[in-house]
């Protein structure tokens, strides 16, 4: 069990387990972890991995995410040349380089963030999507550098920046370097702001810890997907600290909306349209077709 799965409450563990099963290529049928309806894989895919019965939003891979959001043409990746190193010679039950190799083998990604320059309905943007399957989407030096290069590209080209978070937080294997990525990523966004360019932050399941407590909430517009777990401290840590049961729906998107922490909740199937609309409004562009 990874450190992140251990951190999550049992309900999410179930969801995760179920999801892993559903992503098996030979699995034609899968069960929705939320309503337990049996779903046909093709239907689920057509529906952008949203359960057609109950609307549960399944987790997505970084590239799936970007495929859904960006126009198919004119994309190119930023920061893929930036790769992780083990500067602390970190070893717990496993060596950090081994964990990196395993994550690489499991996801075919070299770290937990994929950044692309592209367009949404022909409006140029730079978008950065987290790969949660890569060490729990944890934020280390590579993620920070790719993020910053993405923001810099947006500034240089006068384009908006979109981040799509899915992370358990900082990457402990990089010690204080990982904590500093909170400051680094957030600082880069001040340049975007100076240039008068919009920053849209999308929070997906889960957005926790150091990622939640840095760039995720400083968006000009902060959007969450329905039912996503979003917060600073993990539910288990909070339960242990306050020694009481957490209220129903605690740290879910709907709870955050009610508390005034986010601007809006958007169904994944309407996300592309909404983001296009918001970007057009913020940049005083004509309404998108």
């Amino acid at each position, binding site marked *: 069990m990874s*450190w992140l799965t*251990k951190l999550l409450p049992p309900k999410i563990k179930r969801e995760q387990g179920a999801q892993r099963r559903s992503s098996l290529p030979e699995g034609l049928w899968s069960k929705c972890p939320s309503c337990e309806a049996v779903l046909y894989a093709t239907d689920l895919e057509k529906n952008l991995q949203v359960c057609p019965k109950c609307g549960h939003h399944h987790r997505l891979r970084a590239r799936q995410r970007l495929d859904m959001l960006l126009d198919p043409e004119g994309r190119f*990746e930023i920061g*893929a*040349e*930036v*790769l*992780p*190193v083990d*500067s*602390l*010679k*970190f*070893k*717990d*039950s496993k060596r950090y380089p081994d964990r990196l190799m395993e994550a690489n083998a499991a996801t075919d990604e070299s770290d937990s963030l994929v950044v692309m320059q592209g367009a949404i309905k022909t409006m140029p943007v730079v978008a950065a999507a987290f790969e949660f399957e890569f060490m729990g989407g944890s934020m*280390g*030096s*590579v993620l*920070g*550098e790719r993020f910053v290069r993405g923001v810099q590209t947006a500034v240089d080209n006068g384009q908006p920046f979109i981040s799509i978070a899915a992370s358990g937080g*900082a990457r*402990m294997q*990089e*010690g*204080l*370097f990982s*904590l*500093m990525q*909170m*400051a*680094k990523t*957030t*600082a880069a*966004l*001040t340049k975007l702001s100076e240039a008068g360019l919009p920053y849209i932050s999308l929070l997906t399941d889960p957005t926790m*810890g*150091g990622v*939640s*407590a*840095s760039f*995720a*909430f*400083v968006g000009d517009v902060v959007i969450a997907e329905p039912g996503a777990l*979003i*917060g*600073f*401290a*993990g539910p288990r*840590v*909070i339960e242990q*600290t*306050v020694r*009481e049961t*957490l*209220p129903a729906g*605690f740290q879910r998107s709907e709870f955050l909306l009610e*508390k*005034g*922490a986010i601007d809006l909740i958007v169904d994944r199937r309407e996300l592309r349209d909404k983001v296009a609309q918001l970007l057009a409004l913020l940049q005083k562009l004509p309404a998108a077709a």
Partner: protein
Amino acid sequence: MKTSFLDFEQPIADLEAKIEELRFVQDDSAVDISEEISRLEKKSAQLAKDIYAKLTPWQISQLARHPQRPYTLDYTGRIFTDFEELHGDRAFADDRAIVGGLARFNGQPVMVIGHQKGRDTKEKIYRNFGMPRPEGYRKALRLMKLAEKFGLPVMTFVDTPGAYPGIDAEERGQSEAIGRNLYVMAELKVPIIVTIIGEGGSGGALAIAVGDIVQMLQYSTYSVISPEGCASILWKSAEKAPEAAETMGITAPRLKTLGLIDKIVSEPLGGAHRDHAAMAQNLRKALQDALKHVSGLSTSELLAARYERLMSYGRFKEQPVK
């Protein structure tokens, strides 16, 4: 105040107890044993020197949390004059885990902001063990903006196990409060001098620790997660905390080598808690140097250097994409 000793200081504690006993005996004794006492005192100092010369990161993290260690308000009285504490975030409450206010440093007006822990149980609860809620970070932010408006340098003192992991803190936007501070501190138009005085616990520490100079007291720690937290997640056992402390690199010398902090401020023999006055003296000198260093810069130079520092954080390699 009677010094409380940590486990690894037991030999010093035994010796000190013996000295104390001899002193007591001497008071009503005809024989002069002052020579013996002074011999033992020298021995105790040497013992402390030996023990402190080879502290492990885990021992250092215990020192960083020592209950008698000087906290922010212990320094405000010794290093600053005219300290006027300012309260509240103007929106919800006054968080006592973060204190701040106007003060003079060598006569120069500055803004002081720091985490505040409590010493006895009652005070610990009052200060929430130095774990701020969102309103604490928002108070800090308000004071930083105030400093910016009047062109006052900001001096922050970091000493927290972390931001408070509670239901109310989450409800009021702990994440946003921390993230907002990181954002604003990156572009605040006055110098920010950061000193880690005890525990630099994760995001809750960083939220007042983005600055132009970042220094650490000799036996303070700064880490992404507490050694216990790291151990219980990665080793599945909090008892592995000493290993986690070792491997994460949380001590001042290690972080200086890694280029993550600028300076280490020496502590008196046996740690800051043994001699608050001497510690304050060292810290005052370090702050003076730091302030002198940043005062020579124009606002644009200051901000450019701060941005460059922030962007330099991280270790990675670059390889052409296949």
